[in-house]
């Protein structure tokens, strides 16, 4: 993101917490202190701080399944991980194959990309019966 020298705005974050969608400006004062402006409520400020210092995302994708009723099982992280680690996590998942049967909530990959979060199954997946 381009920094805008005179106003000191270093980033504009659109709050996604509610549909109002406030634009929150992150400003750096001459003394180096960071300020947030434009939020309407505390939830927006919290979000903007998180998004500025350590953006996180909830990863949801699928993992290949061997001998399952379906070829894929939908999965999710059990807590949000650093946005910067999404690609690492996706690479690990792309190289993983799981055996059926699977139950919702089963931990399929532990501690994904060193993020202290697990990849868990989003549904039950029985074995394919011939």
């Amino acid at each position: 993101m381009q920094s805008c020298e005179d106003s000191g705005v270093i980033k504009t974050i659109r709050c996604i917490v509610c549909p109002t969608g406030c634009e929150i400006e992150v400003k750096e004062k001459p003394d180096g202190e960071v300020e947030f402006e434009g939020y309407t409520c505390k939830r927006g400020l919290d979000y903007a701080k998180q998004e500025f210092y350590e953006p996180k995302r909830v990863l949801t994708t699928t993992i290949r399944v061997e001998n399952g009723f379906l070829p894929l099982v939908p999965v999710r992280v059990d807590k949000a991980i650093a946005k910067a680690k999404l690609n690492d996590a996706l690479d690990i998942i792309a190289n993983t194959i799981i055996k059926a049967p699977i139950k919702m909530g089963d931990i399929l990959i532990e501690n994904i990309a060193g993020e202290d979060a697990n990849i868990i199954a989003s549904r039950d997946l029985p074995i394919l019966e011939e």
Partner: protein
Amino acid sequence: MKQYETDVAIIGGGAAGLASAIEIKKGGLEPLILERDVELGGILLQCIHAGFGLTEFNTELTGPEYAQKFINNALEKQIAYKLDTMVIEITQDKKIYAVNNEEGLIEIQAKAIILAMGCRERTRGAINIPGFRPSGIYTAGQAQRFVNIEGYLPGRTYVILGSGDIGMIMARRLTWEGCNVKAVVEIQPYVSGLIRNQVQCLEDYGIPLITGFTVTKIHGKDRLKGVTVSKVDRNFDRIIGTDRFFECDTLLLSVGLIPENELTLQAGAEISSMGGPIVDNNLETTLEGVFACGNVLQVHDLVDLVSAEAKRAGQNAVKYVNERYKKKMEKKGQIICIAGENVNYVKPDRINISDLDEEIIFTFRVKKPDRRIQVQIKDETNREIYKRKKRYVIPSEMIELKLNPEKYEIDPTCSQLVLEVIPVKEPLIDEEEEE
């Protein structure tokens, strides 16, 4: 032909069908779910992203998780269901004809019926883009099913038409699968889905969102080679000289959902002009004892509201079987509900005068986004029955209003109610904190 009997037959085993079945079982009657797919769960099973269940379970679940919780509940309650069973006909005396591989044609005699068939996606025919019909054009929901359930990619390079949530979520999903999404193109001057999806599905990956544009030409004869998009004027006519070409092998259409009306129409229920059957405040269609809920009634954006609506349909079906089934009831009149200024449609279409002492739940969508507005309900004498200020309304959000009879009185002699969304001039003091 095999014959079955049940108290309440439920057509469709998605979020709506499951919630209504559970409610019917709780009410002491036997439901039977008829589902054409090979498993219960409906559209939720392919919506693998998070964002479901905030009101119902107070936590953010994925679509499959939300479905699984309802499926587990239904199985625990030993609710009867038939999979791989496609309903093809409903008769006036509530006989249902369906087909499945094992039994062929079957007949089910029900006392009441719940329509819960969900919705379908608008396709290219519904929007009319000139050009050949090469392969490589899918609806966003079809692509979602291929990628998330069947496990293959319909192409490598994409343009997505429509900035609804499904389109934007698919843009991210395909990017995660290593595909290249060139652009999301939206005919309206504004994004139609949630800001959250705009930020987390498009902006995070630098996918351009081009508003005020639409696809005006399809290139390629056998396989799609690209699309031309052009800026449009207020009437959505192409503005000459604004063409841009995007090379892509796949075009995804995310241009809207419409209730699955075929069976409803065939059964003889009246359909409202916005699609979906006409219902009264009990979610009963114009056919006695036939109820509708979920996306077959109106397209929902939140599954939690589908579940809540389906519970009501289930409860009302139980009430019908216990109190009105095969009884001659004296018919009291109805009040017609009309969509006024900036309101696209309103449900229910009618309110029974005999039910005015009960809570009435209205659901509606606006036509255009607006800020600082007032939602109001008036009767034909212009008497104000209800008003509420709101900071923000968007067409993609279905809005629910609950009218408590102790607080808001509807005159039983009135014949119609008009629901309107009008701008307010004075600075808005929040009457309601936005969630």
